[in-house]
Every structure is written in C-alpha cells, then in structure tokens.
C-alpha cells in the first residue's frame, strides 16, 4: 500500500523540518516495523498452533481443545504460552552451555529476518530486496544451522542423531528447492519478491489468473515437498521424530527455550508458504472491488492483504493435513527421494522451462509443464514395484 510509503515520507519530512537528524525517524520507523512483524509472528504462530490442534482433532474425529477461553478453546495457545513461561529452565550439566543458549537465538533470529522481504500487499513489503528469493533461501539455511547447534550442544544421543539427520536433510533438499524456485525467476526475470508478484498480474489465455503455478506446476509441487522437509514437517520430520528420537534436536530444551523453537517452527511454516504464494500462487493478486469511501489504492491493498493471507493459510492447512495423514519416512528413503526423484525432476523442469521461453510462446509453457508432468507420472508408474524380500535375506 503506497499510503504507508507516503506516511513514512511525511514523517521524515516533518521531523526534518524540526531539524532532527535523519537517523531518528529511520530508527523509529524500523522499530515500529519490527514490532508489527514480531507481533504478527507471535499471534500467527499461536493461531497456527491452535488451528493445527483443531485440524488434527477434526481429522481424527474428535474436538481438540474446547475449554480454555470459551469458544472452541481459542485461548489454548495463550494458556500454553503462559505455562511455558512459568516452566523451570533446565540446562543439562553435560551440555555445551554457550552453544545451547545461542541455538534458539539463531533459529528465531533467522526466522524473523526472513520476514523482511515478504510481499504482504501491493507496495506493502518491509524491504523489496533485489535478491529477494535468494535471500529467503540463504536465510533459511541459517535455521538449519541453529537446529544443528541445538542438537549438538545438548550432548544427548537422541539430539545428536536429530541434528545430524537435520543436516543431511538440509543438504539433500536444498538443491531441488532452489532449482524449483528458478522456474518463476526465469519467467519473471527478477529475484525481487515484489516484482515476482507483479509479473503474475496478467492472465493465461485470458481466462486463468497469471499465476506461475499453472506453467510451473511441477516446480510448485517440488518446492512444496522440499518446503515440508525444510520445516521438518511430516512426512519429513525425521530430525524430531518423536516416536524414534523422542523429540530429536530439542530433547533437552524446556520452558521458554523450547517455546522459541516451537514459535520459530510455526513462523517458518508461514515463511515457506509465503514463498510458495509469492512465486507460484500470484501473491496478493486476486479479485477485488473498490470499497466505497476508500481510495482505490487502499481498497486494492486491503484485498491484496487478505488474498495473500488466504493463500498462505491454505498452504499451511495443506501442510497440516498431510502431517495428520501420512506416516514418517526413514532417513535413507528421504535422502534417496531427494536426490533420485526430486533433483532429476527439477532439472527437467528447468530445461523445459528454458526451452519453452526461448521458443518464445507463452502457450508453450503449458505444453511444457504438462509434458513434464506426464513424464514424471510415467516415470513414477514405471518405477519397479515395491521390493519384495526373499525369505532369509537380510537387509
């Protein structure tokens, strides 16, 4: 919303007229922005935690939280937060205290930093970094490092195993993830998140919205799969795998320290959904009407804000849905899947996208996308059936 930029400019001008150095308004604006973002992260994470409990409950034919706060236990997350705040903080004697304390900071700090370049609505973006999407990817690799720090510093075998699994998962899924993001970047010719959204304003064939998900359906599915791994969500939640490693990398974390990991996990879910929304689902694009009494720009912004949230939370819902439907993969299967299935697919997508763009026909993008989809389907179908093990054979 341009109105914010105007406001900020007026604020600067007003203070400059008073003779106050430029650093003061800059800092004030920064503090306000970061407070809003932190408030959003906290509230959204608490909402998502409650929402996930309700979704899981309804998938499992039960109600979930019903008591705290009255209507469907809406205050459950707040109650949980207070409980975690009141919990004793224990750092095991065997742990490496410095790294142990640093780990949640790295994880949470990196997660917050990722919110810098999320395009919320037309013109409403903290900073539209020109390397936007690459920045998102690299900042999320910091999260993985934080997880490894947490697991290693605990001096706990379960945590160590969890940390190592997390590292292995990160190195395996990063490549297909990045490759799948390249498709939209190629079409739009930019890495900036804002411009990527703007590039999707047209229409395909005059009917479908100009979202990149249509030509880049393969990339979208690849990205979404990798994003699940990135967030340690089922079926890729092996770093925390509660039935194997108890809680994986955060076994030894209690109280508020654990809460920070928890918060970061949900905040991260929003980040990966936001990336998917921005690159594939048209960001804040969506039908809108001018609201009476409001400038057109503001109305557009408001609708954009809503559309962006709707798309993000839809993806988050899908992630939750998957989590409560699927079983967990094993670590070797997970690696094999990343390297032998996702990587070739994303390379194929890249090559086909490039080829079609060179040939210069947008319509061909569809043909290409569908061709890859078919190819993948054929490959998956022709894949040898599940290995049957002969009696007496050891694996």
């Amino acid at each position: 919303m341009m109105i914010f930029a105007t406001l900020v400019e007026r604020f600067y001008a007003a203070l400059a007229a008073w003779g106050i150095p430029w650093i003061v308004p800059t800092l004030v604006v920064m503090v306000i922005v970061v407070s809003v973002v932190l408030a959003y992260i906290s509230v959204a994470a608490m909402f998502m935690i409650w929402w996930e409990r309700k979704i899981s409950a309804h998938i499992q034919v039960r109600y979930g939280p019903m008591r705290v706060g009255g209507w469907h236990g809406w205050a459950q997350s707040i109650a949980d937060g207070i409980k975690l705040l009141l919990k004793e903080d224990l750092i095991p004697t065997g742990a490496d205290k410095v790294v142990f304390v640093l780990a949640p900071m790295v994880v949470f700090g990196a997660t917050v930093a990722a919110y810098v370049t999320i395009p919320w609505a037309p013109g409403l973006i903290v900073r539209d970094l020109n390397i936007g999407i690459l920045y998102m990817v690299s900042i999320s690799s910091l999260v993985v490092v934080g997880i490894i720090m947490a697991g290693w510093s605990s001096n706990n075998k379960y945590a160590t195993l969890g940390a190592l699994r997390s590292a292995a998962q990160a190195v395996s899924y990063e490549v297909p993830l990045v490759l799948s993001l390249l498709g939209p970047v190629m079409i739009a010719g930019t890495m900036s998140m804002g411009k990527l959204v703007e590039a999707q304003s047209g229409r395909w064939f005059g009917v479908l919205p100009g979202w990149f998900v249509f030509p880049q359906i393969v990339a979208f599915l690849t990205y979404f799969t990798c994003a699940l791994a990135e967030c340690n969500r089922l079926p890729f939640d092996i770093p925390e795998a509660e039935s194997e490693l108890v809680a994986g990398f955060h076994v030894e974390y209690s109280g508020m320290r654990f809460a920070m990991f928890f918060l970061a996990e949900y905040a991260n879910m929003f980040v990966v959904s936001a990336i998917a929304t921005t690159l594939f689902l048209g960001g804040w694009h969506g039908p809108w009407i001018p609201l009476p009494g409001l400038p057109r720009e503001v109305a557009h912004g408001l609708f954009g804000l809503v559309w962006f949230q709707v798309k993000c939370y839809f993806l988050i819902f899908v992630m939750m849905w998957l989590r409560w439907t699927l079983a967990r993969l094993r670590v070797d299967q997970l690696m094999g899947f990343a390297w032998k299935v996702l990587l070739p697919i994303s390379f194929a997508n890249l090559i086909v996208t490039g080829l079609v763009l060179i040939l210069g026909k947008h319509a061909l993008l569809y043909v290409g996308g569908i061709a890859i989809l078919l190819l993948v389907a054929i490959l998956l179908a022709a894949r040898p059936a599940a290995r049957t093990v002969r009696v007496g054979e050891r694996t």
Partner: protein
Amino acid sequence: MAADYAYVGFFLVVGVLFVILNIEILSRIIRPHNPNPQKLTTYECGEEPIGIGWIRFHVRYYLYALVYIVFAVETVFLFPWAIVFRELGLFAFLEMMVFIGILLVGLAYAWKKGALEWA
C-alpha cells in the same frame, strides 16, 4: 542496496533480542529455579546415560554433503542466468545447458558410483 539490508540486520538483532527478552528476562522473573543433579542429567529414557553424546560417529551421509556443495555452487550460477536469460536468448540458454549437462554427468557418475546410496 546496503540501506535495505539495514533492515535485515535490524530484524536479526531484534529476533535475537526477542529471544533474550523472553528467556532471560521475562521468564526468569516468574519461573521457579530449583535445579538438582537429578534434574540436570542428560535425558536418556530415564536411565543413567551411557557415556556422552559426543563421540566419533559414522555419518553415512557425508557424501551427500560433498555432492551438495557442488550443486549448491551450480545453483548459485543459475540465479544470475535465470534473471538475464530472456534478454540474452538462445546463446545463454545453450551455454547454460552445456554447464548443466556437464554437471548432470557428474550426478550420473555419483549415482552410478553409489554416492547417493545410504551405505
């Protein structure tokens, strides 16, 4: 521009400060603090831990990490290419296909050699 990244730094710092505020200040004031040696032992399913967690450990997947580095470097080259590729046209495309092709040979080699196996 560097000024844009002032926000990145600021967000990072505030994220860390938020954690410190919550853990070390807000929670410290109200939470109990009665540690005892039993509480502070490392968790190992209710038994005394056998040895420590930091041991020499066979990481099966270090080969993945090796291959990853190579591909990460490659993807980094792909980003500038993806941006300018539409203006540079066919030549850039062919050039990059050669680049990717050579690396795919590497992937095929790694695959064949079993570097992508969990061994």
